[in-house]
């Protein structure tokens, strides 16, 4: 995958940001590797891990389990780091993970206005829009407008709660379980859980979309 990207990059014009950055980053990698600061193979392993191992499929399994198992849901909302380690989805998770639950009364949305803090272990690397100026600027002031950009409209009686990730605590939204999913397996439920529904800029898919 990496090499196919590399190959594509050669077709961009010289002087574009892409080729300039490719050269700059390669120069930096070469210097630091020659200095012996890391095993060059570790760089390949890191890229592969972020491209293939971590991602929103992890968070989706956690949400599906919370929808299926009331005791796990309770434990997740009390101490998400502790609950997630014991649930069989991942072997290890860092401290300070916090799950916040959507209800008919309250819709939660996660942002980092100061940089790009995001629950990597649950969702993988953040999408570009999450790190972008429009999202970081508006989420705390006009979350309804942000939701409209995502095509999401909430019921009139649902209040919005925005969580600004200004410290090392990391938030994940536990969305509401869609109707018409009674008796579904955790695997089938997980297919409803989108990345954006765990950030709070989206809602889970409806039952008919995966049934």
């Amino acid at each position, binding site marked *: 995958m990496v090499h196919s990207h590399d190959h594509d990059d050669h077709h961009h014009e010289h002087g574009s940001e892409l080729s300039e950055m490719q050269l700059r980053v390669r120069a930096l990698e070469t210097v630091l590797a020659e200095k012996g600061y890391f095993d060059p193979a*570790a760089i390949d392993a*890191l*890229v592969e891990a972020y491209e293939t*191992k971590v991602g929103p499929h992890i968070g989706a399994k956690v949400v599906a389990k919370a929808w299926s198992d009331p005791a796990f849901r309770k434990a997740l909302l009390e101490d998400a780091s502790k609950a997630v380690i014991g649930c069989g989805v991942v072997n290890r998770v860092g401290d300070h993970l916090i799950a916040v639950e959507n209800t008919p009364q309250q819709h939660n949305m996660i942002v980092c206005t100061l940089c790009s803090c995001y629950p990597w*272990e649950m969702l993988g690397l953040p999408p570009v829009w999450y790190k972008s100026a*429009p999202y970081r600027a508006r989420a705390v002031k006009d979350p309804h407008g942000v939701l409209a950009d995502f095509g999401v409209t909430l019921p009139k009686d649902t209040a919005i709660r925005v969580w600004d990730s*200004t*410290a090392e605590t990391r938030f994940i939204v536990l969305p509401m379980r869609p109707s018409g999913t009674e008796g579904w397996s955790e695997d089938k439920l997980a297919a409803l859980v989108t990345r954006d529904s765990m950030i709070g800029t989206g809602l889970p898919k409806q039952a008919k979309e995966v049934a």
Partner: protein
Amino acid sequence: MDGIHDMGGMDGFGKVEPEPNEPVFHAAWEGRCLALNRAMGYTGIWTIDETRAGIEELPPDIYLTSSYYKKWALRLENLVVERGLAGADEVKAGHALRPGQSLKRKLSAADVPNTLTRGSYGRSAPAPARFKIGDRVRTRNIHPQTHTRLPRYARGRTGVIEALRGCHVYPDTVAVGHGENPQWLYTVLFDGRELWGDDTAPALKISIEAFEPYLEPLVIPAERSESRNP
């Protein structure tokens, strides 16, 4: 610092633009850049707070016009030169011209799975927490020239302590090399109107994660005089 990175509440950036089926990286160099930053962080030569400060110190025009991973690349170039890990001449040449420093740790491919788990920033508490759940607090109106995690939009505002999150490494001192100086961390909840005025959507609530030095107790003048003259 009151930098361009502190974006909460700014207008004029336009719509959020979600990208359908977004790839993890948009070019191979982005993945290499992320990995290089992780690998150098693993050596222990700098903290996450120092690296955040490194992004915030990029000139505002560069900050706004550079892609996310370009900012990471510029920051890493700056940090390795500042810390003497490589010379500017070497970065320019794209090859080491002198031997490297000896660092605490060196990342191997076998260790990579362990680096995917976040570290802990919790520390034992040097003193009891000053605030409890339900306390009304005011955020301090501070404008340090150095790194802070109290966003501008939430300075000098009244909120309520919603949760205690334990005692954590304090970014404001770590970032300037003054040590971990652990501080209690709270979730502080604000009414939307307190932050943005009366035109704000009713019922909007916003919280920040605030370290204890960012907060002062909200003392209502009448209560103060009563407590002095019981």
